[in-house]
């Protein structure tokens, strides 16, 4: 019983971070109608920012303040100069925007590899392996902090989407782009902002993960895979779904690693993906209707 509880707690904490990754992806999916296959790579870039700042003595949580604006800018530039021009390009190539994100992901990975080489980097903090106990269950300190910061960001994101003008415009664009344009929303600008927000959110996840994870250039790919599993699980474009999806994936990975063996950790997510396609196409969105 102790092991089970411990596993669930570990999965829940990880799930909070996954939710943050998933929300960024699902926002982009909802507004642009494309999957961003450079999502994990953006997170990787943010982790390297945290690493560089850490070598200068900056705590990874403060590097959030640098990494998020930087990635926001990166997302804005990518959307403005690489993805939006494709709408006007006359081509028979289907999904050229998605292919473009693949190319962008490759470039990000290789540029980072070029600068930092392929070896593992660590963000060292005094609390990296600190734990505290609550009712016989151990909580990893950085993961617990990460979980609560992730919760705060998620709540802030919801407030932003529901209460602010810009947030409403984003939701309107996601629901019906043409109608939103007719209502006077500059949808081109909205896509740029959304990409920036998605990138900033995943940057936050990267910085929060940095103290407990090793950092290397090829880390992007597996996290892109996790991000799309979360998005499919939650339902394309659904933010509530992304949170549920993130937590489910975190739990499932944790349970898989404990009860099946470490080598199954990655395959669990993919198995969920297949199961969702088979039994619940549309994901949690079909159940929650949001």
């Amino acid at each position: 019983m102790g092991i089970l509880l411990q596993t669930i707690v570990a999965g829940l904490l990880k799930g909070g971070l996954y939710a943050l990754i998933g929300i960024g992806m699902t926002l982009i999916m909802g507004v642009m109608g494309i999957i961003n296959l450079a999502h994990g790579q953006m997170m990787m870039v943010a982790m390297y920012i945290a690493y560089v700042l850490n070598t200068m003595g900056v705590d990874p949580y403060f590097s959030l303040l640098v990494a998020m604006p930087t990635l926001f800018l990166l997302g804005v530039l990518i959307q403005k100069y690489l993805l939006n021009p494709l709408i006007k390009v006359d081509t028979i190539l289907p999904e050229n925007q998605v292919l473009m994100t693949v190319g962008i992901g490759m470039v990000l990975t290789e540029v980072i590899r070029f600068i930092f080489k392929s070896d593992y980097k660590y963000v060292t903090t005094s609390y990296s392996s600190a734990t505290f106990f609550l009712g016989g269950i151990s909580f990893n300190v950085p993961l617990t902090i990460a979980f609560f910061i992730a919760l705060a960001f998620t709540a802030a994101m919801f407030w932003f989407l529901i209460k602010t003008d810009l947030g409403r415009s984003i939701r309107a664009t996601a629901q019906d782009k043409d109608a939103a344009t007719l209502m006077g929303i500059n949808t081109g600008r909205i896509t740029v902002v959304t990409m920036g927000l998605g990138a900033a959110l995943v940057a936050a996840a990267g910085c929060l993960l940095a103290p407990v994870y090793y950092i290397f250039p090829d880390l992007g790919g597996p996290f892109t895979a996790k991000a799309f599993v979360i998005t499919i699980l939650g339902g394309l474009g659904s933010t509530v779904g992304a949170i549920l999806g993130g937590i489910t994936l975190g739990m499932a990975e944790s349970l898989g690693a404990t009860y099946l063996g470490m080598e199954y950790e990655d395959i669990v997510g993919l198995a969920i993906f297949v199961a969702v396609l088979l039994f619940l196409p549309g994901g949690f969105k079909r159940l929650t209707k949001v």
Partner: protein
Amino acid sequence: MKKTPVAAIVAVAALALLPLVLADNYFLHLLILFLIWVIIGSSWNIMAGYTGQVSFGHAAFFGTGAYTAGLFVMHGGFSAWWGMAFGGVAAMLLGLPFGAICFPLRGAYFALASLALNLILMHLATIAERFTGGMQGIMIMPTFVSKVPYYYITLGMAVATLVVVQSIIRSKWGYYFVSIREDQDAAESLGIDTNRYKNVSLAVSAFFTGTAGALYMNYMGFIDPHVVFSLHDYSVMAILVAIVGGVGTIYGPAVGAFIMVGLQELFRSGFFGLFKYLGDRTGSETFTQAMEVVQHAHVLVFGILVVVVILFLPNGIVGDWGKIRKSVFRSKPAA
């Protein structure tokens, strides 16, 4: 019905005669790789370029074919050449249920599912050590010492693939495929069973990719999960080959394969040994370092190439040939 262009026939004839004049192993190796990529690129193209179903995981079919050939040797003690007969069928058997699940769903599902399929197979091939040899992979003894027989077999396969793809595209199926790509609802309303024809195009595509995988196993003699199920080396490369040459054109992937294999080799060998030569001649460290940089830069260049091609040559070299000719040769005044 259009005839096969003379240029294509000349090219095949030239390729067939080439080993008689040029029996250099290095060039034969590059040509074999080029021909394998013609097969994979054309297969990807029939599904993505003509039917509009973009696959991000074609390595799944390639690896299945390669493992079919390898498993024949590992478990039955049969010749790996049996893989040539069954590798394509195995890939097709993998593709059909996969298509049956994904095609009824609209949107990004197919693209994501193909990527997932690729990853799942890579993990499975790694975990099932007893069955596949796990990370150690499968090694076989090559049948021929010389590269010439492999070259002719690959050439035959590539020509067969192009002929079959061309005849499918010019048949009724081809028109069904294109109509699905252009407007699925309109195709459906004209009475085309869109799911069925998406599956047909997937099956053809998987079959040829799987056969190419089996051929690869026979030729290279070694596979492991991270080689044949590699996202970068196969899935993304297949996309690059097709989009650089031209999606939705019959000869585009052949042109793309030529350019991509050439580029890959250019970087792998450090501009065909130019840097090494300069380094040896001048004895300067700079060239040796430059060579290392160049050897590691090929994925970066591929990434930049994806971005540039999609932005500026969205229909590839063959598809945008008119545009290229106009801007490069200025043979006609710009309209």
